[in-house]
């Protein structure tokens, strides 16, 4: 094993891959390779002989990496998954942050810690961004539906925009529902009738 640890990052999204590489570079001196294609993933990784493999836990290709743990030939280095070997909760933290690490057998935990710390920070950020994006999309979608429902109420009842919204809000409160739900029901019903 050379002194500089080699890391393979499995990530299809180029921007995300670059951010991960940047934070690993900040954490120490490593030899880093990014693999972006999923065909022959296990073979590509084997060819690189990395000490550590980092992969997003939501990546469906991850199962391909499990083969690495079965490497039994004399020239192959077994790869163990970190999850079971840490006593300091680092692996739990990693999985919670959404990253899984495959680590070559016998690698000192102390050498691994800075790598995982950096990866965890980065993946937490990705996770936050993912949640935010989903939330924003949902909010935007709801806003659109509420606007359409408002328009329908305004037209049907000849009221102002504020009054239309008040009518929707009251209906929502009466039915113990969210305004967006009432709006969606109205839009669907109107779609059926038109």
């Amino acid at each position: 094993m050379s002194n500089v640890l080699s890391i393979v990052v499995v990530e299809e999204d180029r921007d995300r891959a670059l951010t991960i590489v940047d934070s690993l570079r900040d954490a120490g001196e490593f030899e880093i390779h990014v693999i972006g294609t999923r065909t022959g993933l296990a073979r590509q990784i084997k060819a690189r002989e990395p000490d550590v493999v980092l992969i997003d836990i939501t990546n469906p290709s991850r199962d391909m990496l499990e083969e690495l743990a079965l490497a039994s030939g004399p020239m192959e280095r077994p790869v163990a998954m970190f999850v079971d070997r840490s006593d300091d909760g680092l692996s739990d933290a990693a999985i919670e942050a959404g990253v899984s690490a495959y680590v070559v057998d016998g690698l000192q935990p102390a050498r691994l810690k800075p790598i995982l710390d950096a990866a965890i920070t980065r993946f937490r950020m990705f996770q936050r961004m993912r949640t935010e994006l989903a939330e924003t999309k949902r909010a935007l979608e709801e806003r659109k539906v509420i606007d359409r429902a408002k328009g329908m109420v305004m037209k049907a009842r000849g009221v102002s925009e504020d009054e239309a919204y008040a009518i929707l809000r009251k209906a929502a409160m009466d039915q113990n529902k969210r305004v967006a739900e009432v709006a969606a029901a109205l839009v669907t019903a109107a779609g059926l009738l038109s």
Partner: protein
Amino acid sequence: MKARSVTLGFIPLVDAAPLIVAHEMGFAAEEGLSLTLSRAPSWSALRDMLRIGHLDAAHMLSPVPVAAALGLGGVSGGLSAVSVLSINGNVIGVSRELAARLRDAGHDFAFDDARSAGNALIAAADKPLRIGVPFPFSMHAELVFYWLTALGLPAPENLTVRTVPPALMGEAIRAGEIDAFCVGEPWGSQAVETGVGELLLPCSAIWAFAPEKVLAVRDEWADAEPALVQSLIRAVWRANRWLADPSSRMLAAEMLARPAWLDLPAELLDRALGGRLVISANGDTRNVPDLIEFHRGAATFPWRSQAEWIASRLARRVGLDPDRAAEQARSTFRSDIYRLAMEPTGIDLPGASAKLEGALSADTAVASRAGRLILPRDAFFDGEIYEPLLK
């Protein structure tokens, strides 16, 4: 009574049905359970989530707890199978190019004879034959190795088994990475539907009674919450019984098809549930009555001998001692917990917790508490019988 919550993970496959049905049809609620089901992106992620306690229980490949007990695959120990969720359910398929070669060589695609299909495949394929399976620790992998090595194809020299997630199987075939595949439904039907491949054989033709998926739990959870585990086993057992009723089939297919669960066309799921598969792009169909079994013949009973068989096969291909592996892994199938759970329901339970695997060439009555339990045919295609260490 306040419902006690249980978090479960699953992979979107037809055989995740018992967990989904337990939730949707109220069998869990009947046991005072509130289930939270989450879809996992991969088997390894599901296993790890279970292992670190993010999930209480999971839909799991039957060899995964066994592999963990043997320290294979990065996880060591800590997982148990408290009941079997499904028997059989996988199919073998080949690329269209290989299917054409098989047809030219005169293979009839009769879909019921593992020996003739296997010999035809070995004769037609380039060597090494490359077969994709969803996970290294899976019934798929064990059955593929069992089948082709029994027919004289030397592994690993002439047989390469690669891990390819089912959703990426089509891509792997197109990229020329694999020649054939072994997957659970609906992915076999999906491969036919998308024109990627043709089906060659249901795995039930290799082993007539293979424990496919299990209800897996973390040992610490099973120890800490025995009542909860037992309630869960009963709820899932009722779901399994419901699924096995032919009149449930249409509803089951519609339910599983919903976006929250499998998010696939109900028609595709119905093929697997009904045991009627379309095997090629020109619409040839085959009836496979034992394609997947949820209930009949004590299907959900976790036999210690099943764990032993898996362990000894797994050991053989990774170079461990088969008998020692069987001994290490036999108790991952918790027939003791299953008995405790099912005792109060009065259903008939087998007298023993281990059996000869592969000994029944026809449905056979066996010793049981009430003396009316019939075990279905469980033969291997080559007539081999596995004798457990302890009966």
